[in-house]
């Protein structure tokens, strides 16, 4: 079995420069939890391993004029314990509570989770509702890619061989209501069969003044569900309205995926999880 070469980048510039010449042959190693599985199976078979796991430039969590900036190398544990993220992107903090296992959270990175482009990636719905932009660097400079553009298909990111995600810029938001929930086949170490991220604010009368919602693990690429958001905006959420919004959500999902075998479960389940995650808003808005 052909072995690999190992390169550890000392700076971001070094990493980008290296990728510009060797990108096609290179696997980027941030946390490694997805990379290792694919290397072991033979699915990922490239000549060079570029280790960016120690680049300080990729590890920052800070609020700047741009927004809430989360380095691509930030681990799920760091997301879990960050007061800034808990305050400004609570759904993202919530998803880190049920992500895989403690061992994996300790090294898996948000950048890796996004770049792997698994439809089931748990960080993705929260990033979507915060309208996150991935800041991607290559030899030509930096550009921003939105979350719904970064995956071109299931397990296919739109990233080119010379690209490296540097950070994510989220629109920070302190909201009155935020949650992330998932359905898995067991209560831990479970790939999401379905996930949802939501955040919302209400006005003085209890009508929703702000809402963002994203569905995960049900579509090949990430989606913010505007149709659902606009349906609920400006009104008090009631059980009846949530039922209707759930139906809209299910319709949208089926539009995107078509009627596959899993639809028998997912069509009702998406409405069910939707109700479960949003029902607490009914009481919250009635206060």
């Amino acid at each position: 079995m052909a072995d690999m070469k190992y390169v550890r980048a000392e700076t971001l510039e070094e990493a980008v420069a290296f990728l510009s010449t060797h990108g096609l042959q290179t696997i980027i190693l941030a946390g490694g939890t997805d990379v290792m599985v694919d290397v072991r199976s033979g699915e990922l078979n490239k000549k060079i391993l570029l280790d960016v796991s120690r680049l300080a430039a990729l590890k920052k969590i800070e609020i700047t004029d741009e927004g809430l900036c989360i380095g691509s190398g930030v681990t799920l544990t760091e997301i879990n314990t960050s007061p800034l993220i808990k305050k400004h992107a609570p759904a993202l903090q919530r998803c880190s509570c049920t992500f895989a296992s403690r061992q994996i959270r300790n090294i898996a990175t948000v950048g890796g989770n996004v770049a792997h482009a698994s439809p089931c990636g748990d960080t993705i719905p929260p990033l979507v509702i915060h309208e996150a932009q991935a800041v991607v660097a290559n030899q030509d400079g930096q550009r921003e890619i939105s979350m719904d553009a970064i995956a071109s298909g299931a397990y296919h990111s739109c990233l080119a061989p010379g690209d490296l995600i540097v950070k994510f810029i989220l629109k920070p938001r302190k909201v009155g209501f935020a949650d992330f929930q998932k359905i898995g086949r067991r209560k831990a170490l479970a790939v999401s069969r379905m996930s949802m991220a939501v955040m919302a604010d209400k006005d003085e009368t209890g009508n929703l003044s702000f809402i963002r919602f994203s569905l995960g693990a049900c579509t090949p690429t990430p989606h913010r569900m505007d149709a659902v958001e606009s349906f609920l905006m400006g009104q008090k959420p009631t059980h009846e309205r949530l039922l209707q919004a759930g139906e809209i959500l299910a319709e949208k999902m089926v539009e995107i995926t078509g009627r596959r075998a899993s639809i028998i479960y997912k069509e009702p389940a998406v409405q069910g999880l939707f109700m479960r995650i949003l029902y607490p808003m009914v009481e919250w808005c009635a206060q």
Partner: protein
Amino acid sequence: MEKEKIHIQFTLNGRDVSLDIPVKMTALQVIRDGVGLKGTKEGCGIGECGACTIEVNGKAINACLMFGVQLDGCDVITVEGLEKEGTLHPIQEKFLDHHGVQCGFCTPGVLMSTHALFKENPAPDDEDISNAVAGNLCRCTGYQQIFSSIKAAIPVNAVDDDSDMASRHDDKAMCQDSATERDTSMALNGTKKDKTEEAQHHG
């Protein structure tokens, strides 16, 4: 085919270790085959069972999911590093006292997850414990005695636990085969449930 070797240096259980390893070698292979410490186990190779859990820079990690080259410059602890000069670590003692070991294959991984947990949080509650160990699968124990072993090993508990042990062995109450004796006998459990609370619920 010539394999490129990378030189890594790290601290393993307090000792300095130096190795030249191929890039594709996992951290698990480095520990088991490179260094020769067999305590860390391979249960699945893909991070789905936790049997290979080690502590790297104070954090519990699946060694099968790390490249060996990532160990460079790190402070690594494996199960062999828990005991000091022939004296078991309190976590190890409690697992023996509280019957947290059956086949033993998941045990090193569980011990390391526990060790890392206490490092981060010397006073974990029940949920902290289950969050820390959720990634360690066990097929033998059903986790209950693992849980009680960990609870007993919580640093502040470990000091007081010895007095408990003696009474646990003697007054094990059991259900007899006649209804009349039930009122005084009680379930053998010894973990989370408050026995007096149970007694009140009897019809």
